[in-house]
C-alpha cells in the first residue's frame, strides 16, 4: 500500500511543532527515518499510525484520504519501548489481534522466546519483548509497517532477527523504520529521510544523498553521517 503524506503538521502542547512534513512510502521499499533526539521521529510515527491526530495536512493510503481511525485499522506500529496491558499473556495478545495463533507460528515463537506463550510480556527481557512486539506488528500481513528504534538495546543475534523479519516483510508492505543505527539502516533501507526540528531536511536514496551533499564517505554509514553533520550545521 502506498502512503502519501502531504504538509502534515502536529502541534504538541509544549510548543513543539512537527511539520509541515511531506513524504512518500512505497510498497516493496523500506524507508529509514533519521534524526537527532527530539527531531519528531516518534511523533511523526504516532501520527502516521493514527495514535495522534494531525493538526493540518493529509495522509493518503493508495490515494484515499485516511483519518486516524482508518490509519489505526491499516497501519501496524511497533513503538520504541513496547508496552503491553498487564495480565495479558503473549498468547492473549495474538488472540486479540488474529483471533488465534496457528500452531506452527506459535511453536516457532515460543522456541525463539525460550518461554511458553502463556508468559506475561512484562516477565520477558527487552529483546524478547521487542521480538513479541515485532511478531505482533507483522501478524496479519499489514500493508504499512512503522517500526521505531527496533535495534536499540538488542543483542547482535536479535538485531539480525529484526533485519531478517523486515527484509522478509518488505515485499508485502511499505515500511518506515526510525533509528539512530547507521550500521543496520543501510542494510535494510532503500530510501532515507532526515528529520530535524520537526521538518524533513533531506530525502533520497543513498546515492542521491551522497551526491546532494558531496559526501566523500566510502561506505553507507559514513555517507549518512555526512548528511547528518551537514543537517546539524545548516540548522543548528
Amino acid at each position: 500500500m502506498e502512503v502519501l503524506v502531504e504538509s502534515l503538521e502536529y502541534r504538541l502542547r509544549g510548543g513543539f511543532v512537527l511539520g509541515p512534513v511531506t513524504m512518500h512510502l512505497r510498497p516493496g521499499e523500506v524507508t529509514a527515518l533519521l534524526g537527532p533526539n527530539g527531531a519528531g521521529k516518534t511523533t511523526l510515527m504516532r501520527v502516521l499510525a493514527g495514535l495522534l491526530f494531525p493538526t493540518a495536512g493529509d495522509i493518503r493510503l493508495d490515494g484515499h484520504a485516511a483519518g486516524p481511525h482508518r490509519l489505526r485499522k491499516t497501519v501496524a506500529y511497533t513503538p520504541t519501548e513496547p508496552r503491553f496491558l498487564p495480565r495479558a499473556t503473549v498468547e492473549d495478545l495474538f488472540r486479540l489481534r488474529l483471533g488465534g495463533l496457528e500452531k506452527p507460528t506459535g511453536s516457532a515463537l515460543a522456541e525463539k522466546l525460550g518461554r511458553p506463550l502463556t508468559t506475561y510480556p512484562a516477565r520477558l527481557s527487552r529483546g524478547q519483548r521487542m521480538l513479541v512486539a515485532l511478531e505482533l506488528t507483522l501478524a496479519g500481513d499489514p500493508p504499512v509497517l512503522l517500526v521505531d528504534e527496533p535495534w536499540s538495546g538488542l543483542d547482535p543475534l536479535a538485531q539480525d532477527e529484526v533485519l531478517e523479519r523486515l527484509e522478509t516483510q518488505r515485499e508485502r508492505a511499505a515500511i518506515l523504520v526510525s533509528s539512530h543505527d547507521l550500521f543496520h539502516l543501510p542494510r535494510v533501507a532503500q530510501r532515507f529521510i532526515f528529520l530535524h526540528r520537526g521538518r524533513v531536511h533531506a530525502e533520497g536514496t543513498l546515492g542521491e544523498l551522497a551526491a546532494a551533499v558531496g559526501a566523500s564517505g566510502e561506505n553507507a554509514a559514513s555517507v549518512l553521517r555526512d548528511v547528518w553533520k551537514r543537517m546539524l550545521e545548516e540548522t543548528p
Partner: protein
Amino acid sequence: MRVLVFEARRLGREAGFVGLAAVLHLASLIQSILDGGEPAGTVLFAPFLAVWVAAGDTAANARGGRLDFVVTRGPTLPGLQLARFLLGWSCGTTLLAASTLTLVVRGQYLEYSLEYLGLVGYWAAVGALLGQRVSAAATLLLAVTSSALALWWHGAGAMLLLGQLPGDWPAVLVTAVLQFIGCAIPFGRLSWLASLPAFLAWLPWLLAPVVLALAVKAARRRQLPAQEEG
C-alpha cells in the same frame, strides 16, 4: 466479542478483584438463601463493582503506551470501552442476581431488581467514561464519595444548609442531581424519596445509554501520545 474475552481473561487474573468478588457473591448467596425476606445487603456493592471494573485503568493504560498494540490493527478504543462497560455491568449484575436470586425465583422484588440493574448499568457507563481520565481506584472513590454526599444531603445536608427536607422545593433539585447522578444506592432503598414520582426510579435506564454514548465519543476522540516524544 474478541476484546470482551480478552478483557475478561485479564480481569480473571486480577487476584484481589477475584477474591473480593468471590467473597461478595458467596456472602450474597448465603444471605439470600438463609434470609429470603429481602435482598442481601451486599447488593449495595454491585454498582461499585461495576464502576471499578468498567473504569479498567484506561487512562493509565493510554498514558503508559499500553494501548498501542490494542488499538493499532486491533479493536478500536470505543470497542475496548464498550467491552469494559459490559464486563462492569456483568459483574454488578451477577452480584445483584446472587443477592436477589431466591426472591426473584419466588416472583418477589422483580421490579426492584430491574431498577437496580439500570443503576448498575449507569455506574458501569460512568466507569467507562471517567476511567479514560482517572484511575479505576479514583473512579471508585468518586462513586463512594458522591454516594456518601447524597446520603448526607438526604439525612442532614438539606436541613442544615437550606432548612428544608430533601423532597421540598427547591432542595429537591439538589436531591435529584445527587440521587440520580451521584448516588449508587438505589431509589427504592431511600424511604425519604417516596414522595417523588415512582417513575424516577427508572431514570438510570435512560441515563446509562447517554453516559455510555459520551464514553464512546470520548474514546473516539482520544489521542494516544507516547510517554517520551522524540
